[in-house]
């Protein structure tokens, strides 16, 4: 999981590229890493372009990351969901919880746009 920080319009945004699979094997690792990222910024984007499979524990991990970002007055946005992953989000009603963008730069820009006067 590659992670980088970008600053747009005075907001530091963390962009994490998720791996191909997010399941019981690596969902805890994501939660742990997310805790570290949230020490740096509560504004996160998960770039799901490479993500091809997600199961219920992976979904749980992402929702948990969202909850912690919201608790810190931030947000977690998703980008680049493929049809398969998108259908899982839709099926589990998780789609309603997230702002979803076609790519990571649009998601990051939306944080900046929300801060514009």
């Amino acid at each position, binding site marked *: 999981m590659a992670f980088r920080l970008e600053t747009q319009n005075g907001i530091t945004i963390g962009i994490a590229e998720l791996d191909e699979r997010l399941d019981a094997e690596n969902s805890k690792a994501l939660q742990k890493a997310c805790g570290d990222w949230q020490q740096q910024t509560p504004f996160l984007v998960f770039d799901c372009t490479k993500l091809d*499979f997600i199961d219920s524990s992976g979904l749980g991990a992402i929702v948990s990351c969202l909850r912690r970002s919201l608790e810190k007055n931030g947000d977690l946005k998703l980008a680049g969901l493929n049809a*398969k992953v998108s259908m*899982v989000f839709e099926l589990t009603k998780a789609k309603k919880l997230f702002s979803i963008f076609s790519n990571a730069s649009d998601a990051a820009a939306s944080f900046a746009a929300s801060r514009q006067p």
Partner: protein
Amino acid sequence: MPQPPLRHPGNHNNAMKTLIAIKEQHQSWVRDAFPNMHPLLLPLCNKPFIEYLIDFAILAGSREIRLLSDGSLMEIEEICQTGSRWGVELTYANIRPEDGERELLHKNRKFCNGSRTMILNGYTFIDYDKRLDYRVLANHSATGPIASCSTGSIAFAGPPEPAADDNPLPALRITPLDSLRSCYHIAMQILETGAERYVLPGYGSEPGCAIGRNVAIAKTAEIRKPVSIGNNVQLLPGTIIGPMAVIGSNVIIDKGSSISGSIIFDNTYIGEQLEIEGRIASGNTLIDPESGASVAMEDPHLLTGIHSATNSATLLRKTIHALAAAILILLQAIPVIILYPLLRLQGKWKNGPITQQAGLAETLAARLSLDRFPLLPKVLLGQLAIIGSAPRSNSPGCRPAVFSYAEAEDWPVTGSDAAIVERYHAVHSTPFNDIGMTIKALINRPHKRNAGAAA
């Protein structure tokens, strides 16, 4: 080149007959989408496609129907048999992929025997209305096609029967059944029109709600019409079914899930707290009927197939369970011989679980699960499983057993959570997994009992 009009030799006295001819080329998309399903059994609102064609043939006055295909009809023959269920004579024959209507008539000339013959050709849905008299069509229609679409047609051969009435010809529309999209829309159309127009399975006290046999609906489950629910279905608490939902047979909808504008095919488990809207779910596959995109879910907690145990699988499970029970009997025999008289004399071992653990004998008996010893011979006789649902539970869909999956998983042994754990394992566990689960149950039971005692 225009086809000459269809003519049929022979006498005109016999009642009308029907040839239903369906070729593999028209139904290949069904084989691709649902590899384990015969295309003629594709359910449209919980009724196999072939039955709509048979219904229409009967409404048109046929008493003898022949099903023709260039593929295998064995599965259809096993299900439809001689047609006595419909009060007709149903026969089967093979054709070649290149056979046209002329060849079909020529090859089946003995069956047709000079009668007026209706030919339902292709993989198409006939939008009939059971309230209308389609015998008029047979009486009045000229020889040749009377309706056609991209995947098939309805045609008549042989001379019209003498007209005995002046009823108007009923309108007839046929729709190509050529994709998942058309399958979805036809099923939804049937559901919306309901039993007024078609002969549909299930029963219901009010229009727009057809429910099959052995359907368990939790008190907090909600049904929003129109819906069609098949046989052996469980709707767990908090589920919302409909509007516009077709639930097939042998389906479990787990807690809090909602299904609307969707079709759930037979043998499907829908996990907890899911929302299915405008989709087709079949086994572990979720399909978007509009785009044709499908996702095979790898996570069995979301969506999975329910497989009925075959006889050989059942036999294997029983054998493995019996072997495990025999080993347990051998291991527990000596402790039982020593401890049973002692505990029995002290009144601490009745015909139920060992409840007191104050002494060494009681603790040892509890740790070795000796209270289940009397049940083990029943596993050898095939009356109980070694592991399954809550001990000796006989609830529908449960596998009564000596140990329960909930005990193995260290879940509460009673209550709805335990029931879900047990149902999940009853569907997914293999006979070899059962051995592992039995060992876990043996380990967890004393631990749980000690925890309970400490509390």
